[in-house]
C-alpha cells in the first residue's frame, strides 16, 4: 500500500469515521445524563420522511436539502411527542415510540410514492453506511491536503460531516451551562428563567443533524452506537461533568479511528487478507468499551460503593 493509496482510499473514510463518532460521542453524554439514551435511535429514524422530502423536492442526493428536511422532520416529531403526551396523557416512552415509528413508516411510504427508491436511496446504505466507498481521487500527494481545489474534491459526505460537527461543537460550547442545568434539573432551569423547552428542542435538533450527517457515511446502527456507547462508558469512568462530555467526544473519535484501522488497513499492513465492515467493527468496539468501563469501575473500590 502506497502513501497515495492511504491518502486516496483510507483518509476520507478515516476522517468520516472520526468526525461522525466524535460528534455523536459529544452529544451522547447529554442523552445519557437525561436518561433518554435511545432518543438518538428514535430521532435517527424519525428524520426519514424529511430526508425523502428533501431528496424528492430537489431531485438530487445532496447533503443540505436532505439535512434541512431531516431537521424539519425532527422538529415536527419532537413537538408532536409533547402534544401527544399532553393530550393523551401517556408516558413519554410510549409517546416517543408511537410518534417516531409513525414518522419512519411514513418515510417508507413517501419513498415509494416519490420514486426515490428507484433512484438512489439504498436502505442497506442507511443501515450499514458506506465508509469504504468514500474516496478522494483528486489527491495527488500530501500537498493535496493544503490544496483548496483538491480538498473540494473530498466526498460531499465529509464536507457535511465537518460542517455539522463544527456547528454541534460550537453550539454545545455556547450553551454549556444551560445544557448542564437542563440535564441535571430541567424544572430548576425553567424556574431560573432559562428557556428549558427551547433548549430541549435545540438538543434534539443537534442530535438529528448529527445523525443525518453521519448516516450516509457510517450508517444508522453506528450512529445509535456512538450516541450511546462512548457516553455510557465515560459515565462509568468519571464523576466530572466536563470529563464526561469532552471525554465522550474523545472516546468516540478514538473508537472511530481504531475501529476503521482494525477493519482493514492494519490487517492489510500485517499482510493478512482480512477486510471487515468498518462500521461493524467500530460499533462492536463501542460495546466492548462499555464492558471494559464496567469492569474497571467494579474493580475500583471507591466507585463501586457509590454505584
Amino acid at each position, binding site marked *: 500500500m502506497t502513501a497515495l493509496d492511504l491518502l486516496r482510499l483510507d483518509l476520507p473514510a478515516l476522517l468520516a469515521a472520526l468526525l461522525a463518532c466524535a460528534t455523536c460521542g459529544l452529544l451522547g453524554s447529554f442523552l445519557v445524563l437525561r436518561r433518554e439514551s435511545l432518543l438518538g435511535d428514535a430521532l435517527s429514524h424519525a428524520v426519514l420522511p424529511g430526508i425523502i422530502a428533501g431528496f424528492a423536492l430537489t431531485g438530487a442526493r445532496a447533503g443540505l436539502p436532505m439535512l434541512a428536511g431531516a431537521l424539519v422532520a425532527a422538529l415536527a416529531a419532537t413537538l408532536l411527542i409533547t402534544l401527544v403526551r399532553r393530550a393523551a*396523557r401517556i408516558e413519554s416512552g410510549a409517546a416517543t415510540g408511537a410518534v417516531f415509528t409513525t414518522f419512519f413508516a411514513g418515510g417508507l411510504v413517501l419513498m415509494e410514492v416519490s420514486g426515490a427508491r428507484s433512484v438512489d436511496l439504498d436502505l442497506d446504505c442507511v443501515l450499514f453506511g458506506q465508509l469504504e466507498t468514500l474516496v478522494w481521487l483528486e489527491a495527488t500527494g500530501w500537498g493535496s491536503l493544503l490544496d483548496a481545489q483538491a480538498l473540494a474534491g473530498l466526498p460531499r459526505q465529509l464536507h457535511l460531516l465537518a460542517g455539522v460537527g463544527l456547528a454541534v461543537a460550537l453550539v454545545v460550547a455556547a*450553551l454549556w*451551562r444551560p445544557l448542564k442545568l437542563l440535564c441535571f*434539573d430541567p*424544572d*430548576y432551569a*425553567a424556574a*431560573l428563567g432559562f428557556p428549558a423547552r427551547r433548549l430541549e428542542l435545540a438538543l434534539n435538533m443537534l442530535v438529528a443533524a448529527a445523525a443525518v450527517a453521519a448516516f450516509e457515511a457510517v450508517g444508522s446502527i453506528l450512529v445509535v452506537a456512538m450516541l450511546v456507547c462512548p457516553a455510557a462508558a465515560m459515565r462509568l469512568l468519571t*464523576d466530572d*461533568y466536563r470529563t464526561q462530555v469532552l471525554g465522550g467526544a474523545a472516546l468516540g473519535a478514538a473508537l472511530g479511528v481504531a475501529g476503521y484501522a482494525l477493519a482493514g488497513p492494519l490487517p492489510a499492513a500485517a499482510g493478512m487478507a482480512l477486510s471487515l465492515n468498518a462500521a461493524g467493527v467500530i460499533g462492536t468496539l463501542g460495546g466492548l468499551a462499555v464492558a471494559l468501563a464496567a469492569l474497571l469501575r467494579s474493580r475500583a473500590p471507591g466507585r463501586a460503593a457509590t454505584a
Partner: protein
Amino acid sequence: MSADGGEAAARAGSPPPLEIRGLTVAYGERPVLWDVTWSAPPGLTGIVGPNGAGKSTLIKAALGLIPALSGTARFFGRSLEEVRNRVGYLPQRASVDWDFPATALDVVCMARYPRMRWWGRVPRAEREAARAALAEVGLADLAERQIGRLSGGQQQRVFLARALAQDADLYLMDEPFAAVDAATEQAIVAVLRRLAAAGRSVVAVHHDLSTVADYFAHVLLLNGRAIAAGPVRDAFTPEAIAAAYGGRLNLLEHASVHAAGRS
C-alpha cells in the same frame, strides 16, 4: 378563602410575596387544584394537606412549571418574569438523579447561572457565594464531595444551599423536610428562622402535622381547594384539619396535632 397576611401587607402598602387567584390545574380529566385563591404573607408559611391534595402542584403551577387551566400567580405584586431573581425554588429531592457527575459546589453554583455567561469558568465571586451558601447549611467541608456520595439529608441540604444561593426574597420549597435525619431537620429549621429574621419569606410544602405550629407562623390547609388559611393559631384547628384530611387523618397524627395545639 381570603388570606390574612396578604390583606395585612396590602394595608401596609406592599403587595404580598405570593398571591394566587383562581388557580385551577388538572392532570388530564382529573382536577388537582380547583379555583384556589390565596396569598402568602411575609414570613414562614407551611402548605399542609393529604397526599394528592395538590401541594406541590400549587408551587409548580405558580412557577409556571406546569400549565394551569386558569388563574394567576403574582409575586410581590408583579409577574414572575419581572421579579424572577427575587424568587428562589427548592424542588423535591427525588426529582433529580443524584448520580449526576457533579460536586455539591457544582450544584449550588447552578443557582448563580443567571448571573454568569453561558460558558467558561465560574467567576470567583459566584463560587464564593455558593460556598457561603453551603456553609450556611453546615456543609462547608463537603463542597467538593460527589453528590452521589452524600447522605439523603446532606443532599437535601445541598438543595437548600442552592436555593439560598439564589439570594431571593421569597423561597418556594417543595417538601424540604421529606425523609431527612434529625440533624438535617434542625439545620433546615435554623435556616428558615434566619431567613424570616432577615425579612425573607418562605412557602414550604410540609407533611408533618405535629411540627407545623413549631416551624411556621402561617398555614394553608389544602385539599384540591383551599380549606383554611391564616396564622397557625387561628387556621390550624382540629376542625379545619379534619376538613382537609377527611377521614384520612389517623389517630396518632390527631393526637400530636392536639398536643401541638395545646403547647
